[in-house]
């Protein structure tokens, strides 16, 4: 059952501008580089993308140093603590590009390694760019910390489980966890973004 405090943001493929810096890093090219193949891969990928996001805005507590308390889990993490403390609230969210992208990549892996490599980089960039898009939508005029994801620093991937359950991500986004806490669809991201307290702005 969807919890009433979960909000959703969906976007059409053409609404999301891919971050050119991120893409260049993933493609190992100069920033802004493009060619016919990249343009063609991007065009085809656009038809597979289905951007969805679920997010909540919830309180954060700090029972002790390096320990964070959310309504879905108590998390021990020095790095997340450093990122969030002393924010009293945070956005917690999950985004996905959808399972059609996974199937499309599986197919490209067979037919063309070049297209597979380029499309994989484009899809990863798409997920990341959509994260940026939803972060801007959530923030409105709030001042926020940089988003922080499970797997960064010492924030364990095991956090994915309660976090995704809290966001009802299986039903709302189609995200499930496999062994090793890796998400399916592959091009999915979870993150926590602290909302800075007014007095700290």
């Amino acid at each position, binding site marked *: 059952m969807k*919890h*009433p405090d979960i909000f959703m943001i969906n976007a059409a493929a053409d609404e999301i501008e891919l971050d050119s810096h991120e893409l260049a890093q993933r493609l*190992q090219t100069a920033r802004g580089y493009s060619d016919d193949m990249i343009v063609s891969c991007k065009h085809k990928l656009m038809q597979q993308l289905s951007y969805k996001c679920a997010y909540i805005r919830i309180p954060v507590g700090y029972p002790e140093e390096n320990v964070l308390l959310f309504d879905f889990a108590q998390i021990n993490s020095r790095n997340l603590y450093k990122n969030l403390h002393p924010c009293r609230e945070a956005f917690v969210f999950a985004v996905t590009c959808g*399972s059609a992208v996974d199937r499309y990549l599986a197919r490209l892996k067979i037919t063309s390694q*070049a297209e597979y490599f380029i499309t994989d980089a484009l899809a990863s960039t798409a997920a990341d760019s959509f994260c940026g898009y939803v972060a801007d939508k959530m923030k409105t005029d709030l001042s926020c910390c940089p988003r922080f994801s499970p797997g960064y620093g010492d924030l364990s991937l095991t956090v994915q489980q309660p976090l995704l359950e809290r966001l009802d991500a299986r039903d709302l986004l189609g995200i499930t966890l*496999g062994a090793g806490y890796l998400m399916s669809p592959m091009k999915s991201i979870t993150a926590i973004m602290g909302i800075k307290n007014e007095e700290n702005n």
Partner: protein
Amino acid sequence: MKKITDLIKEKRVYFDGGTGTVLQSMGLPAGQSPELWNISCPEKIQSLHEMYFDAGANIVKTNTFGVNRNKFENYDELIRSGIRLAKQAASGREEAYVAFDMGPTGRLLEPLGDLPFEEAVSVFADNVKVAAECGADLILIETMNDSYETKAAVLAAKENSDLPVFVTNVYDAAGKLMTGADPAAMIAMLEGLRVDAVGMNCSLGPDIMLGIIEQFKQYSSLPVIVNPNAGLPEIRDGETVYNIGSDDFAAYMAELAKGGATILGGCCGTTPEFIRKTIEATSNLPYELPDKKHLTCVSSYTHAVFIDRDPVLIGERINPTGKKKLKEALRNNDINYILNEGIRQTDAGCHILDVNVGLPEIDETEMMKKCVFSLQSVTDLPLQLDSTNFETLEASARLYNGKPLINSVNGTQESMSHVFPIAAKYGGGIIALTIDEKGIPTTAEGRAEIAGNIISTAEQYGIDKSDIIVDPLALTVSSNPDGAIVTLESIRLIREMGVKTSLGVSNISFGLPQREIVTSTFYASALTSGLNCAIMNPFSVGMMNVYHSFRALNMLDTGCADYISYACASEASQTSAATASAPEETLRAAIVKGMKESAARLTAALLDSTEPLAVINDHIIPALNEIGTAFEQKKAYLPQLLMSADAASAAFEEVKLRIPKEQSDKSRAIVLATVKGDIHDIGKNIVKVLMESYGFTVYDLGRDVAPESVRDCALEHGCRLVGLSALMTTTVPSMAETIRLLKETDPSITVIVGGAVLTQEYADMIGADHYGADAMDSVRYAEKFYSI
């Protein structure tokens, strides 16, 4: 009390509504699993069920939605208690039934996720065994958003109980499951699996379901269940409320009932009041049992293909008969070759793909399972499971995600007694060959008679004639002068019986020169006689010309749109081929620019006048060196390098066709693996592509590879060069262990390592012979290694 399966065919029946919603109002804390209350607060669970029965519901769902052995150690206790409480609530009431409620496992099945199909079946089976013991009246498989998991649950229910099975799936606003299936695909599969009622639940609300119900009415022969949410939840004045109230909900449910839903209830946000009002709003509406549709269709995990007036193309390329390269791929376990054939035929416009992997020297059943599973990860077309081995047919029908086309049964008792039980259990269209113990009749009437026998025998297994597609067999005209005429007449007779037909069309021209001319003309005649499906080569221009023009001429192609698009694409392709002159001048440029199709075409042309080895040494390798050097000098980027590698591989494929097998060079080989514990293989794949494009033989072990497997592969092939990749720091020890094992086995084995976390220092520390800074560097090292 009447059986529930009888009741749903006589009148409108009502499910209960939400469980969590009501339990939260009784004090269930947010975030706590409601199922735990089956033991800790049994009186409240029983009271929940009683409230729904009091409101008029006929069926209550047990409070077991999320229970399975992976989530709860005491799953059996929770199920036993859940069913007992529902039965106590039903006790003494008329027309009151208990549905054992089974929700998803929470994990996604392979290939998209990591839960193997049979493990999912086993998880559900454990639940069903308990439910059957406890006396539930039916099994409700609900809130499923993946067709494959739905199939696993249905099989578990059918194999471990005799209970009626109802299934509801979650469709989004676009009318699709999360993994892509539309209602037609789900209905085809579920009717094939012999469930008792189908439908939808949860989702967004009854208003959204109104947009989908029409498809159920159109395709379902079974009673249709609709259990929507009360819209979407909102917080108003600190309270959680759903945005569709009970009156509006009931009004929508009346519309859904008029639209064809015959079993009504609710899901999240609905309460006994919603059910009571729904009953008030619908009980006087006329009840109409869905009519039997008699549709001939098969399905994949996304869509159904209907076999009717519009001709259906069944790609024949995955069948080793007469195909040397496919035979070799099957012997070498080269799944990628087979997948490529599947993708090419999908792109060529096939509607269904035939899959036949029968070779005497391989394990056909294992290979078939592997191919079916892998093909379903790269193409969404339904598959035709083609084998003469009954074990192979059963294993692949079980694993198949959807309703397959089974090829084939014939009129012999032996065939029918083996094939029909498979189709009756797993569902499937069945290709029926008009041959029996006496052979193939020489007359059309004789073939139609066998078709009639097959159809009447199928009915004894509960298989409708709409699921039988008769192949009256095309006998080659070079040895059977009236072969075509008899077959065409057979098609007409079988069509008059109201049965669909299929033909392996190309058989007609065996032994004749320029076969395509005869085959395509015969295909046109067969279509005119009413042929529905052709097992054919989609790369045959003649056949595709007939297909497209037939559709345009027979009002099957609105505005001739498909024909125009086909004709324009053919014209463009011919123009492009005509302008590709002077191959020796442009092959190098095609590879450098990464033009895959051009490189293949130009190589083929060049090979008419140049020795294969000269094409490699004078054209392909220099082109690769040019782009490789540009990459090393930072004048070209990785995507360009890979595009060139793709183009070079396409050129190599052409060259390979002209090199006798014994001349193939296996002396320059490398074993590649991403080490144990690491699943990131993009870097390793790039190295593989480049190595292959430079003519190395690559033994690619994939990712997450144990040290022993790397060693065994190197020993088996006598390969002295090994490349290992790792992306995560945590897996570098695994790389070190692999190197240690290799060196211990044979100190002369040379190891290249690479990957994002590797450095020269790391490589030295773990005993690698070379640190491949990038893919090109690894290729250069391999070339040097084999030149010494």
